[in-house]
């Protein structure tokens, strides 16, 4: 479908951020949730060759072209989800984790998640008191079309409610919480099934954490701008 190569120099013992010019696709196969269409997945491979050495590193990931939007619907007060512009009736299940001794395996994830798809579900909500789920969990959600509502590690009972009120200011180390959240987002953000990050369960995270999460997770200004700005239709019939 697409192949692009760029040349660049990287200074010694340094780290750089590189952004490819965007790749254009005409009417690609879209990724749809279970029951709305096919879960079309593309394989994206990034590799880097170094002069005098050869291939230095390679990375690959299954990617689905899809647009997921959600906001609070004025009429119902509920959260309305749309996928590729189409509203979707959410049929979802609660999820804590696959095994209480964390004996997590691909086979177990595939069985658990296919079960949800066979029950005609199209969303799994990962409860904040459990785990931010693993790439294998998300891989099978990509494959079977199960959207994922993923909560961070704040629960009403343990963070600021209950009698007596517990941990009113959440975890002791907010920087550690945000470090873990950022690293987790980097681990999971390319999965098409990831539909929504949620600060916590029945509880808003402490203000500084909540503000930082909202800031880190908002759509990059480039995309907000690009969505509004009509691109020149370069010779496209």
């Amino acid at each position: 479908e697409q192949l692009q190569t760029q040349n660049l120099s990287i200074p010694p013992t340094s780290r750089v951020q590189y952004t490819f010019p965007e790749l254009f696709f005409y009417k690609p196969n879209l990724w749809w949730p279970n029951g709305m269409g096919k879960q079309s997945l593309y394989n994206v491979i990034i590799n880097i060759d170094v002069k005098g050495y050869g291939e230095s590193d390679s990375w690959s990931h299954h990617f689905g072209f899809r647009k997921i939007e959600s906001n609070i619907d004025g009429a119902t007060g509920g959260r309305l989800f749309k996928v590729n512009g189409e509203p979707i009736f959410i049929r979802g299940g609660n999820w804590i984790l696959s095994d209480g001794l964390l004996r997590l395996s691909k086979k177990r994830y595939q069985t658990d998640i296919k079960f949800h798809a066979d029950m005609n579900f199209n969303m799994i909500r990962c409860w904040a008191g459990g785990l931010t789920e693993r790439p294998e969990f998300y891989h099978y959600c990509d494959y079977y079309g199960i959207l994922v509502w993923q909560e961070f590690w704040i629960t009403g009972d343990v963070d600021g409610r209950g009698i007596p009120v517990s941990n009113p200011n959440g975890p002791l180390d907010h920087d550690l919480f945000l470090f873990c959240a950022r690293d987790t987002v980097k681990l999971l953000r390319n999965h098409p099934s990831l539909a929504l990050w949620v600060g916590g369960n029945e509880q808003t995270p402490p203000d500084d954490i909540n503000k930082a999460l909202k800031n880190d997770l908002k759509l990059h200004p480039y995309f907000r701008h690009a969505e509004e700005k009509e691109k020149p239709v370069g010779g496209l019939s």
Partner: protein
Amino acid sequence: MAKITLHSEWLAARSTEVHFTGAQLTTTHPPSASTEPWMEAIVPGTVLATLVKNKVVPDPFYGLGNEAILDIADSGREYYTFWFFTTFQCKLSGNQHCDLNFRGVNYSADVYLNGHKMVLPKGMFRRHSLDVTDVVHSDGSNLLAVLVHPPDHPGSIPPQGGQGGDHEIGKDVATQYVQGWDWMAPIRDRNTGIWDEVSISITGPVKIIDPHLVSSFFDNYKRVYLHATTELENKSSGTAECSLSIHVTTELEGGIHSV
């Protein structure tokens, strides 16, 4: 990049029963499954998963098995502070680099590789990547020992149970269900352990880190753009002249790929 997951041939032992240091375990006194107190371990998994596998404790999910297992609140954190040990091969040539990666450790750990100590800081939901290029043996076995510490605040379980026990676990950045909930008995080791994938990755001088893929849509999803950005790290002491490429392929019916 060659990634080799280390998910077999692990051993484990309670730290209070091991009388060697991490440096000794990974140089002069490597353990074996046949010597007490070492036992076969489940990695990825938790301390309790290993103890259940070796029938040292009953399975907590059958009958009243969980009641027969000492809770960390009563035993203290040392009781669930465990050594995990394994060996691996790693042949490096010329300008190659080797990373030792932990995708999830609960809650913190000290890593010893061939006698060298490295620390995995606190936090259950963070990855760790250690550059071990200068420490690995290219010829022969590499000895890896990991001393895993439980969460700092494991808390205790009030007689009436309740949602999240005494809520102490909330002081850490770790899973909270482990103190028990209305639908769940408490997990005695609070899920301490190397709970996610361990791997070694071998790359050349430049490494790809955490690419980010985003798509944008126009003309009613007819015109679509894929945006890709990535971090790149040049570990060598010279400027790296690189060519970076991105391929997107889709699988047509029956396993035929179009590029």
